[in-house]
């Protein structure tokens, strides 16, 4: 508010009585208001308001032809100035007029005979409110614009179709990914990247909370993982490293679940470790029933002494992996709600690509919007024809 001077506000006094508008004008001018315009009829007031923006209108109710009530309603309804402050002048012995004025859209009243201090106070309060609302509105627009930009950056950070196509070409891996944040920014992330001609790493992560804080933490974890790729750490060592970093830099109470796997397409092996991640579904072959791997070790950031265990599974041609975040099984109630058993049942009954599409559509169409939690889905299938 420091930059805003209410005395520079454009005021319109509407009163057919010369002594009425004259008194208001003199009172306000004596208090430093320097942009005061006069309309001596309701019709003239409406014409003036159409032609130039005013910051506040001081309106007499009793006028010939177009009265103050009509002016008020027209400003609000026909001219569309919903937030323009309108202070009406009214006699205290007319309570019915006061109620009618508010019903017509008045913002406030000032009692006649006009008291100079009261008039100035009411004008000032409504001008300051208007300026604050305008500032808030601008701030909201700027914030939304920045959030949109941040969301675009976050969305672009997860693998795109070009990555899927490259992996299909180089490693015969068929990948589908989907990430939908609950607010504009989310704490979920995932990635799949080529480590060398035969190996690919994949992870899904879910930082606690939603919004900017969770998103920044997720970006931080993404950055740590990118930096660690060159260290060629095995999955358990990777989680160990990440846990130490998260415990060091993230405040107590914030944590992340993470699944990290390294696929060796030549040796047909998947090595993985899980830090409290939701169950991962694994098919040794897409014609076999899926197994659910529960995340056994503690989430990242809970204890710096946690030791992570590495597990191994064969990942031969035809093998599949399905990863999802707990946003998919958020218990919001209703028939569209899913639990882990429901996800597993769906993936047992239908092929993974179709199940992926069904789950994605369910999140988009049947889950309550905005989502209560971020949702990530990742489906990976080793093509039948992989050969080193």
């Amino acid at each position, binding site marked *: 508010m420091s930059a805003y001077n209410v005395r520079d506000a454009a005021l319109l006094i509407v009163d057919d*009585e*010369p*002594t*009425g508008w*004259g*008194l208001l004008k*003199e*009172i306000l001018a*004596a208090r430093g208001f320097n942009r005061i315009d006069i309309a001596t009829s309701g019709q003239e007031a409406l014409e003036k308001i159409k032609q130039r923006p005013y910051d506040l209108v001081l309106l007499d109710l*009793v006028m010939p032809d177009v009265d103050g009530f009509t002016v008020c309603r027209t400003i609000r309804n026909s001219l569309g100035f919903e937030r323009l402050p309108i202070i009406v002048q009214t*006699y205290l012995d007319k309570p019915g007029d006061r109620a009618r004025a508010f019903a017509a859209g008045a913002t406030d009243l000032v009692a*006649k*005979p*006009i*008291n*100079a201090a009261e008039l100035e106070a009411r004008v000032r309060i409504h001008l300051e409110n208007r300026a604050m609302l305008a500032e808030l509105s601008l701030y909201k627009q700027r914030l939304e614009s920045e959030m949109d930009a941040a969301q675009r950056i976050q969305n672009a950070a997860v693998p795109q179709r070009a990555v899927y196509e490259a992996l299909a070409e180089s490693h015969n891996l068929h990948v589908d990914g989907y990430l939908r944040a609950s607010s504009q920014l989310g704490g979920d992330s995932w990635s799949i990247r080529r480590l060398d001609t035969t190996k690919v790493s994949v992870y899904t992560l879910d930082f606690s909370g939603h919004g900017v804080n969770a998103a920044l933490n997720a970006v931080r974890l993404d950055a740590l993982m990118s930096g660690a790729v060159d260290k060629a750490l095995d999955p358990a060592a990777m989680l160990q490293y990440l846990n130490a970093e998260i415990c060091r830099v993230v405040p107590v109470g914030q944590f992340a679940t993470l699944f990290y796997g390294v696929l060796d397409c030549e040796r047909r092996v998947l090595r993985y470790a899980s830090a409290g991640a939701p169950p991962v579904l694994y098919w040794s072959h897409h014609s076999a029933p899926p197994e659910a791997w529960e995340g056994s070790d503690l989430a990242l950031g809970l204890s710096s002494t946690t030791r992570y265990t590495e597990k191994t599974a064969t990942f031969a041609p035809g093998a599949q992996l399905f990863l999802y975040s707990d946003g998919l099984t958020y218990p919001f109630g209703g028939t569209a709600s899913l639990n882990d058993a429901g996800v597993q049942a769906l993936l047992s009954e239908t092929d993974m690509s179709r199940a992926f599409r069904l789950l994605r559509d369910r999140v988009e169409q049947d889950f309550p919007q905005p989502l209560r939690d971020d949702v990530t889905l990742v489906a990976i299938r080793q093509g039948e024809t992989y050969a080193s």
Partner: protein
Amino acid sequence: MLLDDARISELADAVSVHKLDELLQIFWRDLPEQLQQLAAADNDNKILQVAKILHGLRGTAANLGLKGVHEFWADQTVSVERLAEFKTLAVETQAAWQAWQGRRLAL
């Protein structure tokens, strides 16, 4: 009391004696036309119009601290005699204002 002393003082403090005098001159200037309209409305038995004019007149008078004018029309009765009586009151009120103004400016 022809003038509401507290109200007149409040207005003089708010806008200056000079500006208040200007506003009162406008009131006295417009008054004959208002009285003509009042007499015509009363003559034509337009009760609502009479009430409207008197409401405006009394409101303006109260706003400007003209207590005598405000109270004169409290009973809403209009007649030739009352109009003549009011004109006398108006002259006396203007004189009272001149005296008030003189006292204030002498301070």
